[in-house]
């Protein structure tokens, strides 16, 4: 082709819109933030009563470990979280499947779910205390109700989105109803159910703390409440950091489960 003075490469207009994993960036942001915060406290720009230094929060945390109370608080919180979340999730999946599979259940339950889902469960806590007692019952029930509804919605959405072609294939091979549900619908709905776990786990942690702030002797929420009433901001920050760590751990576990169970996805 003859060289033409006006010839030039075609301008590039593609690229972008493709987020890629950048390892360590998240960690770096956190480290920088904490460093700025610490410096601010040491130089006196941030008043210790407004916000204690991260190092002070760390000291408070170590005191908590040394006193042996960390495991008491953590154990109480985690057992409420695990029992409430597991029960809420199992019930939610069961009801979500019923809604997804049976017209009658759908007609009856969907309006009910829509009506109760938006109620802040913490508003019902006094009611739960009357029903289930001031002890563990009311706390577990709050978490159970909080996780139940988002799981129902995620599950029946997932069941609705299972490829009808695959179900018809199952029928065409004469698979039993139970086989179709277990081998086609359940795995097909899993990609919608697992992300629902992230949301319900976050809700569970929020409700856990709220419930523990009302009448609990032990638990991370009780620890934070106590710190707040004593104006011990270093302890308060330490408690919040524990919650944050619980959240990160749960999210990591769900991420692993997704990787393992949804390996077949593109």
């Amino acid at each position, binding site marked *: 082709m003859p060289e033409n003075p006006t010839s030039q490469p075609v301008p590039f207009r593609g690229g972008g819109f493709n987020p890629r994993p950048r390892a360590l960036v998240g960690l770096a942001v956190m480290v920088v933030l904490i460093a700025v915060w610490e410096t601010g406290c040491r130089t006196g720009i941030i008043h210790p009563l407004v916000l204690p230094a991260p190092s002070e929060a760390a000291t408070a945390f170590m005191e908590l470990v040394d006193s042996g109370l960390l495991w008491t608080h953590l154990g109480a919180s985690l057992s409420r979280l695990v029992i409430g979340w597991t029960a809420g999730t199992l019930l939610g999946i069961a009801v979500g499947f019923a809604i997804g599979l049976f017209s009658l259940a759908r007609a009856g339950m969907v309006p009910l779910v829509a009506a109760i889902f938006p109620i802040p469960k913490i508003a019902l806590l006094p009611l739960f205390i009357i029903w289930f007692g001031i002890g563990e019952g009311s706390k577990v029930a709050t978490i159970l109700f909080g996780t139940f509804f988002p799981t129902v919605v995620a599950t029946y959405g997932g069941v609705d989105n299972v490829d009808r*072609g695959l179900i018809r294939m199952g029928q065409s*091979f*004469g*698979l039993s109803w139970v*086989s179709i549900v277990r081998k086609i619908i359940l*795995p097909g709905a899993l990609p919608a159910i697992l992300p629902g776990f992230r949301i319900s786990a976050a809700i569970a942690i929020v409700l856990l703390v709220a419930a523990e702030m009302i009448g609990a002797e032990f638990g991370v929420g009780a620890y934070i409440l106590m710190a707040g009433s004593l104006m011990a901001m270093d302890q308060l920050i330490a408690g919040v950091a524990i919650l944050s760590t619980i959240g990160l751990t749960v999210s990591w576990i769900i991420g692993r489960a997704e990787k393992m169970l949804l390996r*077949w*996805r593109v």
Partner: protein
Amino acid sequence: MQLTLNGINHRYGGMPVLSDIDLEIPAGEIVCIVGPSGCGKSTLLRLIGGLERPDEGAVLEHGAPPADSLNPLTYIFQDFALLPWRSVAGNVSLALEDHGLGKAETEAIIDDVLARTKLSDFKNALPRQLSGGMKQRVAIARALAVRPAVLLMDEPLSALDSQTRELLMDDLVGLWSKTPFTAVYVTHNLNEAVRLGHKIVVLSRRPGRIREVVSIDMPLAERADRVGELASKQEQLWSLIRDEAAAADMELIDA
């Protein structure tokens, strides 16, 4: 086993999609159903396999299916319909699991059908790792595993590129030549119809009626080498469909 379609009429929400269909599907032959898009070909296939009920008329089975047949009427779908979370062997196994065959027999059937479809090396691969042609071979293996009396194929090669389609046609002819099977083969591709059909049923535009049944006597195995002679048949089919296809193309869906 052979099938007879008796006075089939079918509507979707009041709109007739199939009208007065009478058809014989003789044992050991491949019957192709062609017609313009939206003429009810796939609906007819769903009626034949009992996935839908006709509004009027009936699909009759004559004679009992072979005793060893696990699923007498077996589909092969255009979109393959493989479970993405199961391996190649797992997808074949799905069709066998409800029959209580025992582990050894299930394994033997899976190995046999994978060998016949040249998939033995891909036993543990997941569908997402396979090409379109391989996915459809898995679906064919799954269909063969249940020893069908009649294979119901719904545009099985339409989602594939033309080279893969050519290879799979050879595979199907090879499978039929080794053990002749009965099949109803729905397609809009006239070339596939003249290559695979003993009988080609031409449907009209909606509502689908049988316009003509064209028979081709040439043995399947010879057809790949004698495409010249088939061209006239294909031309004949095209002249039957042409105007209707043009008219069907201008129709609004759901109008």
